[in-house]
């Protein structure tokens, strides 16, 4: 019954172990999701492969092509990072509202994304920012856009022997602005009923270019609606246009039902919070 706890010294050793133990192994980074699943007996692995002693993946770096965050970076370090704050306050905010302080001290960004919990915060914001992940496998490294990474409830495009290593968030033009809205419907303390990440760039006349809005928590995986985003192209974000885009999101997405809200309510909230997020990117400082 006892589970083996293995502590590889680097990523390649971790991947080798993962390949060796195949379906019997689970990766543990911060542990907040994994230990929970163990305690609730939702999983029963024979082997835990801890990334706790793997060096080199706890970093936040800004390069010319954008922001690079190591998969083992703690949520709380991202929340507090000046680099992230300078890149986009909305991104830092999306990490600040994850769970509670204890969870943020323990959980890593890689773990957060790999778990693919639909009611999580960062995925919607990162999807709107066109982030991609670099994953390491036994033979090769590859990059997957987040929009193709989340496949369904607790399901990702990671192969069984792959590990998420890095998150790359493309550079934002100085003229771009972003917003993140988390809506909790029951207690103030809790997981989102609806999460909306929005990013927009504006030309000198204030006309919108390249609008990206991702809705999470109300749907299985973070979703963008291209037909809605396209409405903004080359236009000023008037109240009418904002309402039309919000309406399009509300109509196009198929929300789920859970204790935080019915599908009907979530459809309504998608409209409200897409609208509020758009108003914030339109009116905000950055």
């Amino acid at each position, binding site marked *: 019954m006892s589970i083996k706890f293995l502590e590889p010294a680097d990523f390649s050793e971790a991947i080798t172990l993962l390949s060796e133990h195949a379906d019997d192994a689970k990766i543990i980074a911060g*542990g907040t999701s994994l230990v929970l699943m163990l*305690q*609730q007996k939702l999983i029963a692995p024979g082997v835990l492969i801890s990334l706790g002693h793997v060096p080199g993946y706890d970093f936040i770096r800004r390069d010319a092509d954008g922001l690079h965050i190591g998969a083992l970076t703690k949520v709380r370090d991202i929340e507090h990072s000046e680099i992230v704050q300078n890149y986009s306050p909305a991104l830092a905010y999306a990490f600040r509202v994850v769970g*509670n*302080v204890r969870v943020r001290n323990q959980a890593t960004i890689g773990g957060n994304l790999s778990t693919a919990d639909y009611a999580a915060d960062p995925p919607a914001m990162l999807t709107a920012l066109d982030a991609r992940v670099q994953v390491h496998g036994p033979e090769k490294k590859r990059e997957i856009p987040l929009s193709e990474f989340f496949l369904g409830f607790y399901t990702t495009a990671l192969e069984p022997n792959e590990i998420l290593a890095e998150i790359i968030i493309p550079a934002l033009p100085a003229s771009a602005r972003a917003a993140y809205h988390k809506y909790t419907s029951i207690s103030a303390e809790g997981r989102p009923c609806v999460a909306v990440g929005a990013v927009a760039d504006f030309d000198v006349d204030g006309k919108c270019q390249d609008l990206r809005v991702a809705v999470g928590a109300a749907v299985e995986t973070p979703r963008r609606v291209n037909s809605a985003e396209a409405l903004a192209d080359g236009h000023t974000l008037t109240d009418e246009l904002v309402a039309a885009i919000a309406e399009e999101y509300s109509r196009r997405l198929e929300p789920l039902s859970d204790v935080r809200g019915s599908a009907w309510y979530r459809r309504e909230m998608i409209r409200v919070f897409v609208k509020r997020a758009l108003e914030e990117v339109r009116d905000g400082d950055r």
Partner: protein
Amino acid sequence: MNLNVNGKRYEVQAGTRTLLEVLREDLGFVGSKEGCGVGMCGACTVLVDGKPISGCLMLAEQAANRKILTIEGLATNGQLHPVQQTFIDEGAFQCAYCTPGFILSTVALLKENADPSEEEIREYLSGNLCRCGSYRNIVKAVIASSKRG
């Protein structure tokens, strides 16, 4: 494996038990409690390298050779920590099942932010639940602790 708790090293056979289980069952640090088992209530809060974490969501192995502080290690030489004293002075507890968690969270908060606003206090402590509803006095106690320095 070794656990460093309240400045002392302990040799333990942790297996894949949680830090909370090992602290309570093997080492007798019973001030931390399991309340919800899912990281929501904070009754199991302990500080690892000075940062609050949920003892129920961390495996003991993950805490090996890191500095663990439990409520039992807060008072020194029989002298209550100032945060403990202000919790008494402000009457910031009732059944007190949650209290060690609140106190350790407060100690960590004040280390990060010596003069937090009421909003910052509420945000930081929002992951600690008190079913008796002592929150108003808890906020007062945190403010009083920050004033004492």
